[in-house]
């Protein structure tokens, strides 16, 4: 099976100072890969580089065989990559419905929002509300729903658990696993909440100071006490 996302020797950063060094990783179709690590390890930078918000200084990024480096940010979604940025990126001045429509706007004809509302009944109830009227959990659902409206093949998800109650985090994680199982969606999941992330991930990659320090099957990372202590601090 060919990898959906193939990153090799990727270096990137802000200005002259590289934040990411020599990152190599792959994501298979239908695979959930968790990127773990402390604050400032470069997790968000990795996602921002993949979606083109930050230019890569060197290295290769192939998505389904296409070189991502030549693709503009606003074209990523056409290739099947959806990025839910940290802080969720709900457009607070638009309504829930408008936010969702925005997700599928590039598709012709525009997809129905019904499947999204079925996935997130709460959003259906709040259709006409403005983004800034939503709770944190609702915003996360909206951001996720909006990304799914684009019907991506790869979801770049940045800290979905940030600021959410454990129960809601668990719901979202369950939903991701369910989606993966039903649609073959691949997810690159950046998380500080290691336990939740590994609860659904197939593989875990640990970043530290912009480098990959270890990678294992999620189950191994959870089970192996030495690895856990060394890299994940629990």
């Amino acid at each position, binding site marked *: 099976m060919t990898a959906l996302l193939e990153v090799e020797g990727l270096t990137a950063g802000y200005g002259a100072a590289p934040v990411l060094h020599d990152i190599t990783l792959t994501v298979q179709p239908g695979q959930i890969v968790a990127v773990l690590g402390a604050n400032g390890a470069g997790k968000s930078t990795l996602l921002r580089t993949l979606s083109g918000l930050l230019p890569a200084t060197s290295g290769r990024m192939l998505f389904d065989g296409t070189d991502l480096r030549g693709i503009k940010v606003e074209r990523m*979604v056409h290739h099947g990559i959806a990025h839910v*940025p940290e802080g969720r990126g709900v*457009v607070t*001045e*638009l309504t829930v419905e*408008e936010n969702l429509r925005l997700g599928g706007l*590039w598709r012709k004809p525009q997809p129905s929002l019904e499947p999204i509302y079925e996935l997130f009944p709460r959003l259906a109830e709040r259709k006409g509300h403005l983004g800034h009227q939503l709770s944190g959990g609702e915003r996360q659902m909206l951001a996720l729903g909006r990304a799914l409206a*684009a019907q991506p093949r790869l979801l770049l998800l940045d800290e979905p658990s940030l600021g959410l109650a454990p129960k809601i985090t668990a719901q979202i994680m369950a939903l991701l696993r369910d989606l993966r199982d039903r649609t073959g969606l691949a997810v690159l999941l950046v998380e500080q909440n290691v336990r939740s992330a590994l609860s659904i991930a197939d593989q875990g990659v640990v970043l530290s100071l912009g480098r990959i320090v270890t990678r294992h099957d999620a189950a191994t990372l959870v089970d192996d006490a030495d690895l856990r202590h060394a890299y994940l601090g629990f």
Partner: protein
Amino acid sequence: MDRFLFLTFDGLSRGAVYAAFALALVLIWRATRIVNFAQGAMAVATAYVAYSVADATGSYWLGFIVALLAGLLLGAGVERVVMRFVDHSSPLNGVVVALGLVLIIQGVLGMIYGNEFRPATAPFSRDAFEIGGVALLSRYDLFVFAAVGAVVVLLTLLFTRTPTGLRMRAAAFAPDVSRLLGVPVGGMLTLGWALAAAVGSLAGMLVLPTELGLNPTAMDIVFISAFTAAVVGGLDSPIGSVLGGLIVGLLLSYISGYLGATVAPMAVLALLVVVLLSRPDGLFSRSSKARTA
């Protein structure tokens, strides 16, 4: 009483023009956090082109259409060539660049057309016809209401009913997120500037026949009035800018009518000062916080 009614309708007619012009300012402000201080000069430039075309062809309406098209082009050009490269670290940068454009446009217009006033003819009679024995409105006033009303309706439909409008709003509110969602943000900004400049051109075409005529600096006072209208409405609110335009128009009409035309600019300044100091977010906003933008 008759005079009061007449001044009221006259004020609404002026106000409609200020509303359109203020709307153009608000469109750009919302999208780029730049107050386009060059908008008056840009509108005059397109009006010069329009009247040149009208003189050459004998058709006012051809000139009118050319003005709107020229506005679209000029707006897109200004965004693509100049404004896109303005550094946003300080809000002053955009202001200074726009003022530079004012100098360029006024200078070039002066070189081509000269600095004396040229007549700007109206397509309809400006004599008020009587309704029930009271002179209230001219055909030209009706034309102004129709034109501005059409613009407001079309823009509302564009922004609320079309995918492009949704893209434009998203690009204005959250450019980075919008790009991630596949919105070509740069293109939306260009389109926004083009539309705003065309609306500004329309306002210019509507207001110039009611003022002294064509002159490179003819829109300076209009710009101040429209800026005041936009501030009265809150700068961020399209609806507010329309209401603000009508308020400023009425104020100017009453002041000119009862105190003399020369007092009007001072009244605008006074209104601007009062609003900025007491309700910096506009008369219609609920919160009131210092403008730090």
